[in-house]
């Protein structure tokens, strides 16, 4: 075991020096390789993150949601409406939600101002999502001044910054006391933006939703199921992975073809000849070449993947958003929560590193079984 480690470490040592010496060619390969990994990993990280956001968003959303309409426009629900809706058979709970959008000209961002039904912050205090905190540079104890549409200035103390699992769910959220909320939007008490329903029997959701709709004729009823289907069709996982696989296969093929076509340079062949002549066995030569393939492809993978990470999570995926335009409608501000799916990472890693590493062994094997005398003289 010790001998094995010594052997490997010296072979790696040699491989690194060989890579440095045959720099130009390897550098080109490295750049092309990391570029391909960058594109694939950017796509993967981006779609993964969006899919994850959507899943979390849906996990937090109620089974049935109702918005009241008046002349086809959104209208507020009253407490009587809620009481009447709560009597629909099959509804176990109805919760009136109070929220509104607010455009903050200072940060140039939209916030969702919400007065939670349970556990609201004290009056004059707010809890903010990390997106808001970032936009306005807020920490706990700082004050946030907002000028309401009516012109009144609200100075609110940040009691908590919650880092949400998902930025879609809560990054732009500002939670406040119901009285503050009413004053800010100049709304009476007892009005609600929409209503969230909990249904006893999941089998009955459709039925219950229909009955809810009948109870309040001018209303829009939204089912979580339907949202789920909409999202699913947007990021069909299988379609995505297929695309990625096709891309990887094409890329791996291109690299293999190039590598095969160029084979080993005269210098590299001479070097292998010398190494064998001075006592390297075939296994040592192949191990060295395998390290070379692994270092190039593994290094390129690491560089490409890190660059993709920065690109997607810190630079708002600027390079691929135009290509994947459909998604920008869904989520205009791309500050996604960094996350990576181990399976995707492994798949991408194996599919990029393995084929190349194995491919480097083919010309190396051919060289390793040729008489060293021939190779040193360059007559083979």
């Amino acid at each position, binding site marked *: 075991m010790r001998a094995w480690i010594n*052997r490997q470490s010296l072979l790696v*040592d040699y491989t690194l020096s060989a890579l440095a010496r045959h720099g130009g060619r390897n550098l080109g390969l490295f750049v092309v390789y990391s570029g391909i990994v960058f594109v694939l990993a950017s796509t993967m990280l981006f779609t993964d993150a969006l899919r994850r956001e959507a899943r979390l968003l849906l996990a937090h959303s109620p089974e049935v949601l109702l918005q009241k309409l008046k002349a086809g426009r959104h209208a507020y629900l009253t407490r009587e409406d809620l009481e009447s809706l709560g009597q629909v058979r099959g509804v176990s709970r109805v919760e009136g939600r109070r929220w509104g959008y607010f455009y903050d000209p200072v940060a140039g961002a939209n916030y969702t101002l919400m007065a939670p039904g349970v556990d609201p912050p004290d009056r004059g205090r707010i809890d903010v999502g990390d997106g808001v905190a970032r936009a306005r540079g807020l920490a706990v104890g700082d004050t946030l001044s907002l000028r309401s549409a009516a012109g009144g200035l609200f100075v609110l103390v940040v009691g908590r910054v919650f880092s949400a699992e998902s930025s879609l769910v809560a990054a732009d959220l500002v939670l406040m006391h119901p009285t503050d909320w009413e004053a800010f939007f100049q709304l009476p008490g007892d009005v609600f933006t929409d209503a969230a329903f909990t249904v006893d029997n999941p089998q009955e959701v459709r039925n219950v939703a229909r009955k809810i709709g009948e109870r309040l004729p001018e209303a829009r009823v939204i089912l979580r199921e339907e949202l789920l289907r909409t999202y699913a069709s947007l990021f069909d996982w299988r379609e995505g992975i297929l695309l990625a696989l096709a891309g990887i296969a094409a890329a791996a093929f291109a690299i293999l073809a190039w590598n095969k076509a160029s084979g080993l340079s005269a210098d590299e062949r001479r070097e292998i000849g010398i190494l064998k002549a001075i006592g*390297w066995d075939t296994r040592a030569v192949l191990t060295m070449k395998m390290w070379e393939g692994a270092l190039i492809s593994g290094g390129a993978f690491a560089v490409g993947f890190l660059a993709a990470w920065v690109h997607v999570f810190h630079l708002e995926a600027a390079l691929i958003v135009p290509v994947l335009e459909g998604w920008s409608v869904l989520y205009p501000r791309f500050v996604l929560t960094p996350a990576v799916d181990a399976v995707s990472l492994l798949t991408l890693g194996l599919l990029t590193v393995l084929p190349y590493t194995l491919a480097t062994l083919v010309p190396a094997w051919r060289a390793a079984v040729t008489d060293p005398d021939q190779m040193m003289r360059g007559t083979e």
Partner: protein
Amino acid sequence: MSALIELAGVTKVFHEGQHNALVALCDVDLALEAGRITVLQGPSGSGKSTLLSVLGCLARPTSGRVRVAGEVVSNLPEAFLADVRRRTFGFVFQQFHLIGGLSARTNVMLPAYPTGRTHSEIARRAAELLGQLGLEKLTDARVEWLSGGEQQRVAIARALINDPRVVIADEPTANLDSALSAEFLGILAGLRDEGRTVIMSSHDPRVCEAAVVDRVVRLLDGKVEA
């Protein structure tokens, strides 16, 4: 049958079957005993380097048979030949064949990389050998900066790093002055006294006639002279 290396009817043809076919070795029979210093002597182009390559399992003969320590190696595939070579031989090539871009020390250490010894162990031995050959000041220099004689000594140190049973040296003194040549012959005598076998080629009459040399084999046009 006590010979360490035996050649029977060995012929080596380059570019066989082509218009430029060239017979470099022709029906060579040769037996080399262990623990001796043998010198191959002959004019340029007589096949000395080719014979050393075949002896040292760097090339396979076109026909004929080569035995090393009783084992027939002439029909082994290269993968097995490599093992025989690693276990048995240390080479000093006529063109040195050092690896450019690396230091003298690294070049000397290279043959020992796959052996499983530690870096420091190998480095210590390399420094020792380079010291014996008067190169202690140049261990860190890149080999392409060295003079011909210095490169040759690096090549000699490299051949000795794995303590081979057989040292094969092709014109090892061609670039050495007489003092260093004498020193080199001293090193060879030391190796022989440890029971190792030395086979080399040389033009140099001082080498062929040196007291340490046990046997001189003359080559002419690919044939061994009686």
